[in-house]
């Protein structure tokens, strides 16, 4: 149960091993969240992160295996989480893969894996999560979308389109849940300096996992539908969305 001071009792992280997922978990624990469940593809690599969350004051930290691509198992996975941990007050969807745009233009299988992970995997796990939260009558979901989904760019359109699909899916799902006591927050970060982007050169308006985590907490508290990180990207992206296609095409972005 979210308490009278806005603290979430139990939080589930899908993609709990991601830099943004872990940064958000640390920020929540610092604010008083007692129970943290990290659902990750490689649970064995998270032992140190678990210790750190405990040291920061979490009463209970669990790591469970979760694979976004294993869509057939998602329904049962969600059932098991709510069975095992009781009411879940916050679900953070933080999994996602970037892919190598150039390589994917030749390697269709690699492009499909990005689309399957970021879009199909998210749809597959968000629907049962939304059903559970509706049943319990309270809760929040934060979904990591991306500004890359706001307009197709030749430099990252496979990743961008997967996030665009996820973003639109979440807009509609958020409206469906709005009257049910469940909040859905769409988070649109710009370039985040994390392990997913470590091999790339940073771009303007780049940000950090910690800043994304703080923005998620603020957005949840304000009951926002969408947050941009950094927040000025909202206006930058709004400008870019309205550029004529012929002009946009010539931009080196």
């Amino acid at each position: 149960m979210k308490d009278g001071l806005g603290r979430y009792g139990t939080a589930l992280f899908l993609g709990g091993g991601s830099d943004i997922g872990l940064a958000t978990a640390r920020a929540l624990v610092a604010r008083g969240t007692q129970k943290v469940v990290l659902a990750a593809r490689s649970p064995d690599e998270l032992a140190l992160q678990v210790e750190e969350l405990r040291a920061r004051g979490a009463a209970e930290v669990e790591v469970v295996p979760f694979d976004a691509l294993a869509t057939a198992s998602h329904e049962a996975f969600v059932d098991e989480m709510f069975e095992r941990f009781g009411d879940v007050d916050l679900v953070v969807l933080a999994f996602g893969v970037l892919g190598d745009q150039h390589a994917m233009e030749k390697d269709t299988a690699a492009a499909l894996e990005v689309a399957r992970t970021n879009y199909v995997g998210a749809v597959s796990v968000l629907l049962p999560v939304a059903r559970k939260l509706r049943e319990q009558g309270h809760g929040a979901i934060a979904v990591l979308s991306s500004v890359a989904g706001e307009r197709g760019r030749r430099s990252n359109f496979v990743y961008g389109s997967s996030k665009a699909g996820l973003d639109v899916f979440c807009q509609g799902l958020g409206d469906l849940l709005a009257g049910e006591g469940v909040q859905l927050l769409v988070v649109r970060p710009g370039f985040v300096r994390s392990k997913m982007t470590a091999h790339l050169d940073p771009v303007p308006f780049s940000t950090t996992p910690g800043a994304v985590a703080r923005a998620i907490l603020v957005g949840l508290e304000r009951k926002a539908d969408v947050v941009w990180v950094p927040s000025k990207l909202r206006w930058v992206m709004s400008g870019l969305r309205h550029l004529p296609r012929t002009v946009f095409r010539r931009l080196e972005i």
Partner: protein
Amino acid sequence: MVRPRDAADVATALGAMGARGAIARGLGRSYGDVAQNGGGLVLDMTAQRGIERFDEDEGILAALAGTSIDDILRAIVPRGWFLPVTPGTRFVTLGGAIANDVHGKNHHGDGSLGDHLVGFELLLPDGQVRQVALASDPETYEATLGGLGLTGIIVRATVRLLPIGTSWTRVDTERAVDLEDLMGRMASDDHRYRYSVAWVDCLARGRSLGRGVLTRGDHATREELPSALARDPLVYSPRMLASVPPGVPNVVTRAAARSFNEVWFRKAPREERGRITSLTSFFYPLDAIADWNRLYGRRGFVQHQFVVPFGQERVVETAVELLSSGGSASFLAVLKRFGPGRGMLSFPAPGWTLALDLPAGQPGLAQLLDRIDRLVAEAGGRVYLAKDARLNPALLPDMYPDLDRWMDARERLDPGHAWRSDLERRLGLGARQRKDALT
């Protein structure tokens, strides 16, 4: 949420109940989540109101549980009776008052509402209605009194009333320069008054730390009334003075609270004896302003009330110190002394109780209250669950030593856990059952 009109409606609603159970709700004056049930059924009991029997000679009143204290007072005060215990608002139901075992300004001498009941009727999950009196069924009585609605739905109750000669009170007011002075005055002569309560200025620092205004009194007799009032000594016509519209921003800032507290302290007479005050302004000052809670803006406020045993005055002092230095604007801090409690989860226990209103948006508030909770638990004290929205569940067994007995009683009265609430889930009150199921 459904609003059943009668027992048949309740049965229909419970028949359609899902896995998230049901909880009864009264007038919604509990500050926390004790009468909320996300995803489950909430039974608004306020349609089932009405006084069924009022024995004017003996002072016995039987009413449906959805009857409000306001309804009851309008019927009984003009006939020379008063409720033996009343909380700080008239807008609570009889059922809610029992489920939270409410206390009033007279707890040090008269105990809580549970000390003045002939008995009540409790609806069990199988549809049976059980007659519960302390003498015949002490376990059910003590589990239900302060039992947060989790042992069954209170359907009706019978109360022993207090005779009064007039609808006025005779009040003594004194100012205390600091917390020690205040507690000293209360400890030495509270026993001479039926009602006693102190307002504490949590924003005063240094030598004035914990200064306050002590108001104590009793019901006035006819002889004590001035002749203008004595003509109609039992007149009772509570009025609303003002109401706060929706959408007001939070006006309870630290600066506002500080000036309010300063004015309140200065306005109080240094010492005044025998002031004749109406029942409503003595017992229910906030009821005159409808929707006063809106003054705290969109984020609202939290209430925090704890009690620590006599001899642990140091904890009260530390709490006031932490609040005065922690930047929390407490509009209203109320100190009083409790006598013995009765229910297994009843809040009152012999000692000092401090109640605070705190705007929820303040940074650091969560940590501050957690710290106070730990001190309270270590001192053998507890927080008031009817007002709680944020307690760390790990402290619960220390605060409520009868918790195990209560859980046993609940298992007996409601083995399937049909009665559930957000508070019950948040504090893990049903957790033991889950643990048993795993082993």
